C-alpha cells in the first residue's frame, strides 16, 4: 500500500483499516500523523452527530409499546377465537353427547320420528326395490321373510338408537308410509303422533314394526302385508294387529 491508497482508506473509514494499511502506517510517519488527525476528526464528527436526545425518550417508547401490546388486535383476536372455538367445541360435544344420550335412552317412537329427518329423500323415492334385496336385508338381521311385504320403494339398513333396523318406504295411495322393522325387540302396540307425523309401534315376528306417515289410514293394510310376509310365524304378535 502506498501513501495515496492509505489516505483514501482513512478518508473512507479510518476506524476500520486492514492489515496492509496498518503496516503502511507503521512504516510512514506522515501517514501515521494523518491517521491521528483523521481519528480526531471522527471524534468531532461523532460529537457533532450527538444531538440532544429528548428526555425520557426510552421511557416514552416503552410506554407506547406496552400500551400498544395491551391492545394489539392480533392478541385480542386470539382469546376471542379461542372462546369461539371453545363454544363451538362445547356445542359440538354437547350436541354429540346429547345425541348419544338421546339415542340410547329415548323412546323408540321418538327415535323413529327423528330418523325421518336424517333421510328425508327416502320419502320421495319411487324406484321399486327388488324383492330379493328386501328379503336379504331382513335375513341379515335374523328376521327372514317368506316374501316381500308388497311394493317397497326405499330400503336401507339403519341404526336406530342401539338397534339396527330395516328402513323401508312404501308408496301408497295416501302417500308414503315409512316402515321400520326392529328385530328382537318386543314393544307393546301403541299409536303416537308428533310434528304432523302419525305413528304406530306393534310387535311382529319377534321384533317391532314401526309405521310412520302423515296419516294412519294405511297402517292396518301395511301391517297386514308385513304380517303376511313373515308368514304368520309370530301368532302372538299377529294377534295384536
Amino acid at each position, binding site marked *: 500500500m502506498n501513501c495515496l491508497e492509505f*489516505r*483514501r482508506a*482513512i*478518508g*473512507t*473509514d479510518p476506524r*476500520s483499516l486492514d492489515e496492509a494499511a496498518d503496516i503502511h502506517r507503521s512504516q510512514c510517519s506522515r501517514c501515521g500523523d*494523518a491517521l491521528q*488527525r*483523521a481519528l480526531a*476528526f*471522527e471524534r*468531532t*464528527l*461523532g*460529537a*457533532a*452527530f*450527538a*444531538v*440532544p*436526545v*429528548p428526555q425520557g*425518550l*426510552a421511557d*416514552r*417508547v*416503552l410506554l*407506547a*409499546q*406496552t400500551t*400498544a*401490546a395491551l391492545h*394489539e388486535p392480533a392478541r385480542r383476536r386470539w382469546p376471542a377465537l379461542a372462546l369461539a372455538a371453545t363454544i363451538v367445541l362445547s356445542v359440538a360435544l354437547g350436541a354429540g353427547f346429547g345425541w348419544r344420550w338421546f339415542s340410547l335412552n329415548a323412546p323408540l317412537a321418538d327415535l323413529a320420528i327423528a330418523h325421518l329427518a336424517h333421510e328425508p329423500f327416502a320419502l320421495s323415492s319411487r324406484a321399486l326395490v327388488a324383492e330379493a334385496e328386501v328379503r336379504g336385508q331382513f335375513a341379515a338381521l335374523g328376521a327372514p321373510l317368506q316374501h316381500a311385504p308388497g311394493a317397497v320403494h326405499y330400503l336401507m339398513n339403519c341404526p336406530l338408537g342401539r338397534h339396527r333396523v330395516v328402513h323401508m318406504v312404501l308408496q301408497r295411495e295416501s302417500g308414503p308410509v315409512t316402515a321400520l322393522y326392529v328385530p328382537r325387540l318386543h314393544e307393546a302396540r301403541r299409536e303416537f303422533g308428533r310434528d304432523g307425523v302419525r305413528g304406530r309401534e306393534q310387535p311382529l315376528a319377534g321384533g317391532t314394526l314401526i309405521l310412520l306417515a302423515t296419516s294412519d289410514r294405511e297402517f292396518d293394510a301395511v301391517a297386514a302385508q308385513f304380517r303376511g310376509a313373515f308368514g304368520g310365524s309370530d301368532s302372538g304378535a299377529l294377534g295384536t294387529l
Partner: protein
Amino acid sequence: MVSKQSQFDALVRATSADLYRFAFWLCGNEALAHDLTQETYLRAWRSLDNLRETAAAKAWLITILRREHARLYERKTPAFEPIDAVQLPESDLQSPDQLGDDALVRRAMAKLDPKYREPLLMQVLGGFSCEEIAAELNVTPGAVMTQVFRARQKLKAALGGYGEEAKVYELP
C-alpha cells in the same frame, strides 16, 4: 429465561438515543424524529422474533427506521424541511466565530446532500460497514466508499482547519 418484554426493554435503553439521532439527521426535525423512533420501536416489537444477534440490533433498527421514513414519503407529502432548514440546536445558530467545531460540523451536516449524509450517518452512527451500507442503499460498495469519502471531505472543508487535509484525501 429472559422474557420478550425484558429483551425489548434492554434493546430500547441501549439503542434509543442513537436511533433518535439517526432519525433526526435523516429527517432534520425533532418532533418527526421522535415519532419515527416511536414507530420504529413499535414495529421492532412486533417482529422482535426476527432479531437473532444482539450485535446486529442497531443495524436492524436502523433498517426499520429507514423504511418507516420512506413510508412517510409514500403516505403523504412529507413535512420535511429542505436540507438548509434542518432544526439545529439554538446554540448552533450563532455567528461562525462564536461556534465550536461540533456546531460547525452540525451546520455543515445539515447542508450536506442526502446522498452523502445518509451513508455517512449509517457508518458513523449505525456502525455499518461499506458493504452493509451498499446492500441497504442498493448501490455498489465502491459508490458507498466514494460517498462517505466525499462526505468527510465536505465536512472537513466546512471546518477551515481541515481544508488542506481534504485536498490530500481527494480521490483521482
